[in-house]
């Protein structure tokens, strides 16, 4: 049952964004996040909004999936906004009792909120349109130059993809072990922190042993199928740039240029006398 959980919340759809090389998406996400922090002006944020909205549109992933990731930071967001609004000194906008909201406060709160929200949504775009294995392939290819300085890039990528493959299996095993120990009267719920930690032993020990056993079996199976490290391996699904990948890179450059220009413009700010 637990095997139905797909990790990384990949949402399958037939869009250009889905088809893009994972390296493009990785680069794009980084560019977007950096741009949010490097370029500050209302115009810049408008450009960023436009960019994000179009990407979401093209990806064909429903908006509600995109904003799901925000649920986890709702608290952080609220605290950031409130603290910034009320605690930054400057020209007072509104005042009641001992609380005062300043112009600078509003501006800072808005900027931080936007950055945080867009950061989350921007990363979601990537995880929603790229399978975990695609991502590890992308990372492996992107980091491969590091092999020259003896960084075990292939091994790291292999570790990551095997881990991804076994997470649902180990989750299911955890469930089984919990049930078996509960049938022996184990109690994972009650008691204080220390009690709860102790009660994890009958769960963790068998789980670890099982994980090691699987690793052993898998290593033997890999060797039996001729695995001898990254050298001399060919790839079934090699990452090769297509024309739309190259266009995407160009668009990213264009986006950066526009953002830079927009950050230099402060028309709107002036109009609002901020």
């Amino acid at each position, binding site marked *: *049952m637990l*095997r*139905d959980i797909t990790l990384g919340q990949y949402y399958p759809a037939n869009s250009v964004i889905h088809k893009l090389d994972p390296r493009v998406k990785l680069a794009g996400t980084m560019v977007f996040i950096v741009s949010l922090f490097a370029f500050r002006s209302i115009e810049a944020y408008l450009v960023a909004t436009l960019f994000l909205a179009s990407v979401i549109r093209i990806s064909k992933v429903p908006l509600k999936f995109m904003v799901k990731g925000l649920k986890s930071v709702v608290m952080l967001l609220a605290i950031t906004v409130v603290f910034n609004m009320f605690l930054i000194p400057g020209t007072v906008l509104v005042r009641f009792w001992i609380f005062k909201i300043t112009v600078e406060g509003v501006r800072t709160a808005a900027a931080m909120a936007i950055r945080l929200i867009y950061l989350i949504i921007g990363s979601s775009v990537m995880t929603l349109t790229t*399978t*975990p*294995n695609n991502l590890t392939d992308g990372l492996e290819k992107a980091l491969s130059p590091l092999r020259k300085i003896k960084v075990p890039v292939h091994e790291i990528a292999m570790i990551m*993809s*095997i881990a*991804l*493959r076994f997470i*649902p*299996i180990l989750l299911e*095993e955890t469930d*089984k*072990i919990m*049930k*078996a*120990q*509960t*049938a*022996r*009267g*184990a*109690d994972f719920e009650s008691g204080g922190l220390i009690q709860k930690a102790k009660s994890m*032993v*009958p769960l963790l*020990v*068998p789980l670890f*042993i*099982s994980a090691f*056993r*699987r690793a052993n*079996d*898998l290593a*033997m*199976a*890999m*060797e*039996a*199928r*001729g*695995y*001898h490290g990254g050298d*001399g*391996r*060919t*790839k*079934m*699904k*090699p990452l090769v740039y297509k024309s739309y990948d190259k266009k995407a890179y160009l668009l990213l450059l264009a986006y950066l240029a526009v953002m830079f220009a927009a950050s230099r413009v402060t028309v709107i700010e002036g109009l609002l006398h901020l």
Partner: protein
Amino acid sequence: MNIIKASKLAFEYLKFDEEGKIESRQRAVDDVDLDVQAGDFVAILGHNGSGKSTLAKHINAILTPTEGTLYVDGKDTRDESKLWEIRQTAGMVFQNPDNQIIGTIVDEDVGFGPENMGVPQEEIWQRVEQSLKSVGMWEYRSHSPNKLSGGQKQRVAIAGVVAMRPKCIVLDEPTAMLDPNGRKEVIRTVQELNRKEHVTVILITHYMEEVIDADKVIVMDQGRVVMQGTPREVFSHVEELKSYRLDVPQATLVAHELQKKGIGLPDGILSNEELVRELGKVRGIGVPGRTATGAVAGATPADMGAPECTESEAVAGATPTDVGAPERTVSEAVAGTMSTDAGVSEHTAGESAPPLLRLDHLNYIYSAGTAFERQALTGVNIDIYPGQFIGIIGHTGSGKSTLIQHLNGLVQATSGAVYYNGRNIYDEGYDLKTLRSKVGLVFQYPEHQLFEVDVFTDVCFGPKNLGLPPEEVEARAREALRLVGMKEKYFKKSPFELSGGQKRRVAIAGILAMKPDVLVLDEPTAGLDPKGRDDILDQVAKLHAEQKITVILVSHSMEDIARYVERIIVMNHSKVLYDAPPREVFRHYRKLEAVGLAAPQVTYLMHELAGKGWKVSPDATTVEEAAREIASAL
């Protein structure tokens, strides 16, 4: 042409202590000579620990010989430069389906081998397609392996090996973790590969039915080859095989029993069809009643008004050849009374008492309200009476495992109630912990729950959780270990030093130490060799007889179920299909087949004979019954 040649092969497992000195040596393979011709289908049989897996791992050079030599297609396995060639020539499929699949998508996993070999990308895809088609899994090429059944996963693993274009495939107990359907799938696939693609196959197993069609059978015991020959030759030696902790197909056993009774049957009968044929010849020659009387003596029909039953199950020790079969209870003799409705017949054993456990209109839905919603139990009504020995059978996914998890409140029903001793366990404030000590549930592969520093402490875990005083806890642990036959010398050992069968017994002791009134066992024989299976089930039967525990056994083996239980509940797609004594349930063997089950092999034999006009009851469900029936009909 020899594709595998081993001479005086020996292998020792060495255990080193902390200083690197050799602490112990274990000679797992000793003085083995092996000769496999290209295109052969060779089976290696042996009990767990006989050395067969160790031998197998030499064939693709995972292990190299301590003594002697092994040549694979002319290459010496000790030659490190030939290592990858050897592994490409001899591929290997392992026992655990999950632990040999590396890719997250089927086609990626099948391509893993060719990728390692440096095969060019285009060719990899060709090979992937060919291999998947040859095992019948091409439609699943874009699926995640996690969603496949055990049999399907093993077929993908086989495809992964086939994609490397080996000359020989070694399969190390590939079906041990599968259900009967999965086993059939895999063996059929392997046989086709052998016949059509002429791939040499070396199958390591302890399921006798799988090797009937092999070219050669090799039996191993304690690291040595003790028997070699065609299946017919090897299976003729029933007693010898039993001494090696192995088993033979039921037809062979029946023939053996009949031979012992003096009936002239040839050796090495392997299948029902052969037996029927040979019996036909005997009937033509045989003098009626010559040997029959001997077997029929003492078999007084005690069944009350049941049609066609000629032997009584209540006769204890009727045939000296009952290998460990426990005495039948009264209810067995009453078996065959008219069924009432929908296959649910009346039980009489212990039913004067009120039911110990009652399942009332139980419904259970997985992931209710989501896209993954699935009905696991529908309208289940079952009454379980004290002292019964019940078997639960059903296809994979029929709801058996979900059902038993309701018995001790591990899972709460979506609707309906569970009554233990008259009280609804879903009532507010009901003590589920105590319930779990009364209804002991042993999961599949229970040895996976062991975690303590030594055996004794692990068995104490259960009673300790019940809050019992230390002396009581220790007394119970001692008693429980005695009940499963674990000697005192193992008490201080780490559970992880034990063999699989021993670990399992310790795990069962862990539940017995809670002194349950009801013992539920989910496939307790999974992964064990034939003697191991018999041992565990005999132990359970003994517990049932001595301690009067109610036992509920979930199993895929119709033969095991038929031998031990007095009542069978058949689950089919979340509903109870039949709830009746074995004899009755197996009468519906056609319907059972339609829902992915079967009847014991002997039942088919009896039906065939009855169909040919033999005066035998087609209801025999065990070897002993069948032998008696046939003998008395001659």
